[in-house]
């Protein structure tokens, strides 16, 4: 349900990083599996809240970041596509995770962009 607030923060961030006259075509978002954030719910609120903003008509792609897990019991490493607390190799519940809390705006694709605002000076533009 907090996806509505997350999309509001996302739209603020996109507006801050979009050159004045430009329109946003596409927004890429990356979500970690341990955040509890629902990609479907993000989509729903994005479609609703983008109206009247620079994102009006833009699409959003949400990527779920795979989980990098390490088993403290048998020492193996695993890449998980869904959350599991039990090691796939030894069956013990001794997994620790190297990530999973990501909630990132990866990139935006804009039309007629002539530059980027100061807040994103470290960003790279690609043709």
């Amino acid at each position, binding site marked *: 349900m907090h996806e509505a607030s997350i999309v509001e*923060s996302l739209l603020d961030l996109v507006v801050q*990083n979009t050159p004045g006259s430009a329109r946003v075509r596409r927004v890429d978002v990356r979500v970690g599996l*341990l955040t509890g954030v629902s990609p479907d719910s993000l989509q729903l609120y994005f479609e609703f809240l983008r109206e009247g903003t620079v994102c009006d008509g833009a699409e959003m792609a949400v990527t779920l970041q795979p989980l990098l897990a390490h088993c403290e019991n048998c020492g193996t490493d695993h890449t998980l596509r869904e959350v599991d607390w039990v090691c796939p190799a030894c069956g013990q519940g001794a997994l620790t995770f190297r990530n999973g809390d990501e909630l990132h*705006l990866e*990139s935006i694709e804009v039309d007629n962009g002539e530059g980027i605002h100061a807040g*994103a000076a470290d960003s790279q533009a690609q043709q």
Partner: protein
Amino acid sequence: MAKVFTLEQRILKRNSEVAEENRRGFDAQGVFVVSLASSPGSGKTSLLEKSLALLREELSVGVVEGDVQTDRDARRIEALGVPVVQVVTNGTCHLDAQMVQGALAHLETGRMELLFIENVGNLVCPAAYDLGEHLRIVLSSTTEGEDKPLKYPAMFRRSQAMVLNKIDLLPYVPFDLAEARTMALRVNPSLEIFETSCTTGAGIPEFCQWIVQKLSETSAA
């Protein structure tokens, strides 16, 4: 012509910035801040009532109450004579750092040593929002089932302690304490676990002692 800007920014960056401002403010004033989160009805306000009765003997305390509607919880705290401010979120399912910052304007924190923030009853949404607190506590209760940590891992992973409340009901509910501990520690191996009853008062002194210990560790640092 289309251009792609690689941004790699945290979506909740603004909330984190305000949370850091809050934390710096708390540190400057010497206030230790503890937040409580749980499903609705696990006993956050009851735990506060019982704990404040003990803690206020030693410390100057205050409370920020978060609810979707009504000031009923704030009135319960007020009845104890503890300074309290109610944040009514009007539908929003969590507190955020800005709401806490707004609430602080209505609370005299100058001489306060310990401040509790009771979040909106919800095990999902509050997990994503840093409020600037020093300690996060999650409650679960014996009427909810043992598997809450596995179902709502974000909240349990980001908390330093879990309070298992309503242990006085253990004879009447099919709740396995050992299983609940195992599941919680699977999600967060460093979680401190307290077993309490706000009806009998069991476990409340141990919980309060731990809060005081954490507070003194922080002020010594």
